[in-house]
């Protein structure tokens, strides 16, 4: 009976000592919590692709080409929010000021809804946007991410390859393409 009481007291003390701590970290620090696709991979890929695309001849030409973002296919075995990657690429390119972006397929419903809303009787007719004024993209950006995962005993190796392409919508020519590779190896023990 006495030993049970001692054990309970020890457990209560231990629970009291174990406290949780939350701290802010560096959002751009290298993250190696696991070898799954992480924030560093996303940031490194987005930065590399945006910087490379800025050097594409159609963008260097300097006439602010209009691009629409299409799907980046996730061909890996894990869940990756590829939209987050293309959003980061788009943000970096937009800030660079060399590319303009046309509304993409997922944003089209909201765009059309807003045009329709402005054409209702609640809005001043002279200021409401008219149908048929949207500008279509000249180029479309699409890509894919693939991975090769190998695991032997205590070693897990993950290789990611991100490929991005810029296609000319008018003539179907591939105007620019680049790849970024990442390798991560985790060893247990």
């Amino acid at each position, binding site marked *: 009976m006495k030993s049970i009481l001692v054990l309970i007291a020890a457990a209560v003390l231990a629970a009291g000592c174990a406290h949780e701590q939350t701290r802010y970290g560096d959002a*751009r*620090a*290298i993250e190696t919590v696991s070898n799954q696709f992480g924030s*560093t991979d996303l*940031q*490194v890929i987005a*930065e590399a692709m*945006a*910087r*490379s695309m*800025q*050097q594409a001849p159609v963008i*260097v030409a*300097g006439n602010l080409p209009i691009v629409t973002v299409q799907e980046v296919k996730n061909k890996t075995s894990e869940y990756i929010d590829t939209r987050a990657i293309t959003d980061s690429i788009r943000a*970096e390119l937009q*800030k*660079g*000021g060399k590319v303009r972006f046309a509304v993409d397929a997922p944003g089209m419903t909201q765009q059309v809804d807003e045009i329709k809303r402005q054409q209702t009787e609640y809005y001043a007719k002279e200021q409401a946007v008219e149908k048929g004024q949207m500008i279509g993209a000249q180029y479309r950006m699409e890509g894919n991410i693939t991975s090769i995962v190998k695991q032997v005993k205590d070693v897990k190796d993950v290789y990611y390859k991100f490929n991005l392409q810029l296609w000319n919508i008018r003539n179907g020519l591939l105007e620019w393409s680049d790849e970024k590779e990442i390798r991560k190896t985790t060893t247990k023990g």
Partner: protein
Amino acid sequence: MKAVWTMVALLAAVFVAAGCATKKGFEQPGFAFGCPVGEAKVGSMDDLVKVKTASEGRRTTIQATEVRCTKSGDLLKIDANLNNDSSSTKRIAYKFRWIDREGMRAWEEETWKPLLIYNNSNMMINAVAPTSKAVDFRLILMSQE
């Protein structure tokens, strides 16, 4: 006749002086190896590396040995050679810091990029400025050991 000889001697002196004044390189004032250096005195590649690189966080034994710059369109393009002269593979992180004409940050802080350099090896890293407003840079290195 004496006046003619004086004239010839003067012309010869001007040509010699002009020849001496001409640099063998192709540098504009305020640039070294294509990289902007402003008022800094840069007489060699070592001086340029000192001016353009910095260490943050844990120090690394990896050293930049060469930095060269050029332009890609209106964007600053940089090649930097990193050297690992130790007998073990080293892991580091690096990023570029972009600076505008006024000496302010031309772009938000870049993400740290992990890099592995084998023993007794060199690794060439390159970067392109994210915006034409970035006219200068610093290469920042940090150990990941």
